[in-house]
C-alpha cells in the first residue's frame, strides 16, 4: 500500500509525515506527532472530541484523511497556548469549573475558539448551536456555556 509523504503545518510548525492513505488526521496527530490532546471518542464524526482547526475551520479529525491535509494548516488544542500562557478560553473553563473528566474539553475548546473567532460576542443560543457537535457526558453543558460566554466578554489575556 502506497505511503504518502504529507507536508502540513501543525500549530505553526512545518511537519513532514509519511502516512498510509487510510490514516485519519486524528490518528496522524496522536500516533505520528504525539499530539494526544486531540481525543479519540467515537471515530464517527459524532462526538466532537477530536475537533481541530483545518485552515481555521473546525473539523472532526476522525473523518478527515491525513493525506488530504497536504499543504494545509492544522491547529490542535496544544496550539491554543501562547508562550505558555493559557488562552483566555482555557482559563474561563478552569474558572467556571467547566471541566469534569476532561475528555471532551479539547474539542470543546477548539469549537468554542472557532466560534469566538467568527462571532466575538455570541448569544447563549449561538454558543449552544456552535457546540452541538461536542458531546459531554459529565457537565450538563451549562458550565461550558457559561465559560464560553465569560471568555467572549473578557477576550484574550494580555501576556
Amino acid at each position, binding site marked *: 500500500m502506497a505511503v504518502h509523504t504529507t507536508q502540513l503545518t501543525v500549530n505553526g510548525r512545518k511537519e513532514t509525515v509519511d502516512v498510509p*492513505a487510510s490514516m485519519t488526521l486524528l490518528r496522524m496527530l496522536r500516533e505520528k506527532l504525539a499530539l494526544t490532546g486531540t481525543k479519540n471518542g467515537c471515530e464517527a464524526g459524532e462526538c466532537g472530541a477530536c475537533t481541530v482547526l483545518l485552515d481555521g475551520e473546525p473539523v472532526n479529525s476522525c473523518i478527515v484523511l491525513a*493525506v488530504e491535509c497536504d499543504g494545509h494548516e492544522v491547529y490542535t488544542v496544544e496550539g491554543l497556548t501562547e508562550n505558555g500562557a493559557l488562552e483566555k478560553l482555557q482559563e474561563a473553563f478552569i474558572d467556571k469549573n467547566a471541566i469534569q473528566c476532561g475528555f471532551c474539553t479539547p474539542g470543546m475548546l477548539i469549537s468554542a475558539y472557532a466560534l469566538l473567532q467568527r462571532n466575538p460576542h455570541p448569544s447563549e443560543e449561538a454558543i449552544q*448551536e456552535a457546540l452541538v457537535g461536542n458531546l459531554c457526558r459529565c457537565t450538563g453543558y451549562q458550565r461550558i456555556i457559561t465559560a464560553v460566554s465569560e471568555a467572549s466578554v473578557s477576550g484574550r489575556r494580555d501576556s
Partner: protein
Amino acid sequence: MTNPRPVLPDFEYIHPETAKEAVIFLKSHPHDARPFLGGTDCFNSIRDRKISVKYLVDLKGLVGFDQLTFDTKKGLTIGAAVGMNRLIASEDVQRVYPLIAEAAREVGSYQLRTRATLVGNLCNASPCGDTISPCLLYEGMVQIIGSGEQRTILLADFILGPGKTVLTAGEIVSAIHLPLPPLGAQSAYRSIGRNALGDLAIAASAVLGFPDRSAHSSYRFRIALAAVAPTVIFVPMAQELLAAGPIDEEMLDKAAAIAGEACKPISDIRASADYRRDMVITLTRTALETVWGALNRKSKNGA
C-alpha cells in the same frame, strides 16, 4: 457511538488533477473506486464495512468545484466542493435562496458542515437528506461530467431511490445550478429530529409559495417532504388544491392533511411511521402558515 471496528481498512487515495482524469479513473474501476467530497458519510460507511473500496477519488481539488457564484439573471451555481457552512454564511444564499441556508443549518454539527457538501448530500440520495427538498423546490439542475458530453438534468430526475441516482460509473457531479426563484417567493423549512439540533430528520417539510396570476387562487405552492418516503417527494395534490383556492385556514388544513396522506413513512430507530405521518401534517401546516402569512404581508405592503 460504540464502534467495534474503528480503524479504516486499507485503500488507495487518488487525487486527480482534472475532471477528465477523475472520470477516466472512475470509469476504468467501476466496482472498486468511489469518488468523495467531504467524506462525512462515506468514511463511516467504509469504516463500518457497509461499502468496500480499493480507491477513493478525491474530487475536492478539481478546478471550479469550489466555486459558489450568484448571477442576478441566471441564479446560483454551487460547486460540488462547496461546504455547507460556506452556503449558510453566503449573503446571496440567505437573501435569494433562504431555504438552502435554513435546511443546511439542520445538517449535523458546525464541524461536520465545514466538510459536508450540498452536492454530496444530493449524490448520497438519502431519504432524509436535508438539502434535497430545498434544491427540488428551487428546481435545481444537476451538472454531470462523464466521458462523453457534459449533461445537465433536473434534480427531480436525478434521484432514483434511497442511495440511488442516475449517475453511471465514471460520471461525477460538478455542481448544482439553481435558477432564480419566482418573483415574490416566500419559503419555510420545518423539520423535527430527536434533538432540537444536530440529529437526522425524523420528518421535514419544505414549502415555497409565490404569486402567480395564472393560478385561480393567484398563488402557487411547491411542497416537498423528506424522511417520510424512499426519496424526497413533492405533494402535487396539495399544490393543485392551493393553486385552485380560495386559500384560507381550512384550505391550509386540507393541504397539510393531503401531505400526511401522500407520505409513505417507515418505522425505524428514530420514530414510528404513525408519528412521522402526524409530524408531516404539523410541519407542513406550520410551514404553509408561515409562507401564506409572508405572502399576505407582502401583498398588503405592496398594495
